[in-house]
């Protein structure tokens, strides 16, 4: 064959083969790298997804002082379980204690005055009786009898007033006692101390922006799930759900429906900016769950999937 004798033919053939080889060897689009953690996926056929946060079942209590004052003692530390009425804080009570001493001291004189008055009344009563017991009316003057009677009656009234004085002194002492009692801040309910932001020696003012002590119930937690208002019609009350902690999709937390918050609220997007503007409003649904074997904490974020009945009703198209 004449064709095979030409060098150019072989060069051409080599070019073809080289190109084919390069093109076949060229790497194709690689498959997607596997996710580091499996992403959260819904276990249900059709679902309404939500972002959620774990919180204490009872809302947290921000303990406040009854009055402005110096803090002399903090009875609890973070993590303590406290019972109802357990003391939490002691405000400076020296002033009131001094007052209490004064007021306490005011009681015995009042009592003494009563005793004194009683004797005076008794004395006058005896005098009066004696004057009346005289048979001969001329032996005593009418004036003396009258005078004694008036003195006796007046002193009886003084006795009544002294009794009232005693009651007042006791009440004043009790007032101070109660005010003193008030300076010991006590737990309004049983719970766990979540935060302590105050130390002995600091000055507490009512209405301060920072909570002195945060009291909550972490034994029983719940999940608050945020559903975009566009998807709100898809949520059916009573349907179960599952939640995954961020970054641990292997373990699902089964959820039981508790309630739907009846008021739609703006979604909190914590950008830390002081000119926050409302972007989306969300429907909040509360779910109960039993504590899983792995640790969960109040304040942790979760991905929530809520079971949805057959996806017949599609949400309305909203502006993106």
């Amino acid at each position: 064959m004449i064709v095979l004798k030409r060098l150019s033919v072989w060069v051409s053939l080599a070019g073809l083969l080289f190109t084919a080889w390069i093109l076949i060897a060229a790497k194709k689009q690689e498959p997607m790298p596997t996710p580091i953690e499996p992403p959260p996926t819904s276990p249900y056929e059709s679902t309404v997804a939500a972002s959620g946060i774990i919180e204490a079942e009872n809302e947290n209590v921000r303990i406040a002082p009854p009055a402005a004052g110096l803090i002399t003692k903090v009875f609890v530390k973070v993590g303590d379980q406290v019972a109802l009425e357990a003391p939490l804080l002691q405000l400076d009570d020296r002033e009131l204690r001094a007052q209490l001493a004064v007021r306490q001291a005011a009681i015995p004189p009042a009592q003494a005055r009563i005793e004194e008055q009683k004797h005076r009344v008794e004395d006058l009563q005896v005098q009066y009786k004696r004057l009346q017991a005289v048979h001969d009316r001329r032996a005593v003057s009418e004036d003396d009898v009258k005078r004694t009677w008036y003195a006796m009656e007046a002193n009886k009234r003084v006795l009544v007033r002294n009794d009232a004085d005693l009651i007042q002194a006791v009440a004043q002492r009790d007032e101070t006692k109660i005010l003193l009692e008030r300076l010991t801040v006590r737990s309004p309910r049983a719970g766990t101390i979540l935060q302590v932001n105050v130390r002995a020696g600091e000055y507490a003012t009512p209405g301060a922006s920072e909570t002195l002590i945060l009291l909550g119930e972490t034994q029983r937690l719940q999940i608050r799930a945020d559903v975009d208002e566009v998807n709100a019609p898809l949520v059916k009350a009573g349907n179960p759900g599952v939640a995954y902690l961020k970054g641990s999709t292997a373990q699902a937390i089964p959820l039981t429906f508790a309630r739907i918050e009846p008021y739609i609220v703006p979604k909190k997007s914590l950008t830390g900016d002081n000119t926050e503007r409302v972007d989306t409003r969300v429907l909040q649904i509360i779910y109960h769950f039993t504590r899983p074997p792995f640790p969960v904490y109040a304040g942790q974020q979760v991905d929530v999937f809520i079971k949805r009945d057959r996806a017949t009703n599609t949400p309305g198209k909203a502006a993106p």
Partner: protein
Amino acid sequence: MSYVALKMLFGDRAKYLMLLCGLTFCVMLIVQQGSIFWGLMIWSQSGISNLNAPIWVTDPNISQVAEVKPIASTTVERVRSVPGVEWAVPLYRGVGRARLANGEYHQITLMGLDASTLIGRPGHMQEGRIEDLRTPDAVVVDQWAVERMGGPEAIKVGTIFEINDKKARVVGIAHVQKDFQNIPSVYATFERATTYAPPERRLLSYVLAKARDNEPVEAVTRRIAEQTGLGAFTQEEFGWKTILWVLKNTGIGINFGTTILLGFIVGMAIAGQTFYLFTVENLKQFGALKAMGASTFALARMIILQAFTVGLIGFGVGIGLATLFGTLAASRGQLPFSETWPLLWLVFGSLLAICIFSATISIIKLAKLEPAIVFR
């Protein structure tokens, strides 16, 4: 007859080489320019292919990947609620400025990946581990950042720089496809990227999603678009959208198109002219054949055989040279060069057109040929 035709072709070595060179040059030019063009197009959609996620959800009016239109943060949950979606994760993409320790500023593309799954992460790491993105202040840069921002001395694992006055610590160097605009990418977790980002009302750029295995991607993508009112695209669709945007809004398409057309015209002119000269020079021989009783049809077959033989040889040499150039020049990823089978078929078709054109001119000449020419 075929033997005579080939003998005629190869016999005149100078003319044959001239013809071969013309065709080779033409093929090489088209393949090389076409490959560079396609390579550029692939770079233009590297923002999509580097992340390698099956479904992209964003504003319906999006025109290309680098043009970010932020969407509401609850979109992730809305996409997850669409039946047939296996997973959906957020992605931040934005432009930032990195300030190096020596005071230099560099523009960067900031990517925020979902922290727990890191979906959208680069497929290959040159150094470091991508999981370290979860450590405080950690970012991963690509190899182009190393090149653009001062070389391996200035940017290495452990380097600290600033993005928007906030600290960023390099924990790894990724190996990715170069970007069209040659802006280096910096990868961080979504939450960290939003702290680097300038304050904006909306910080979610894209939602990356995947369809369940038993559902076709296209159907799920359509469903996401219908049920959420957002723009949902498969990776391929979004890539094409970006390519079409680049073609429409830059001169690249026209530029390369003109070069390729010129290559085609020049090739056709050289080949046609040389082949015609070749035929004219051999007119005596063709005349003799005709006088001996060969029909015009038989002569035409000879011409076509000659044209196609030289054409095929030129094709082989041409693509071989173009491929050699491409593999040598683009081996380090510095030059966009992407040769594909469709391009080769296209070039093959053009070459056949050139051959047919050249052969036709010669055949017309031969058809008018008088056998008596032999005796003049």
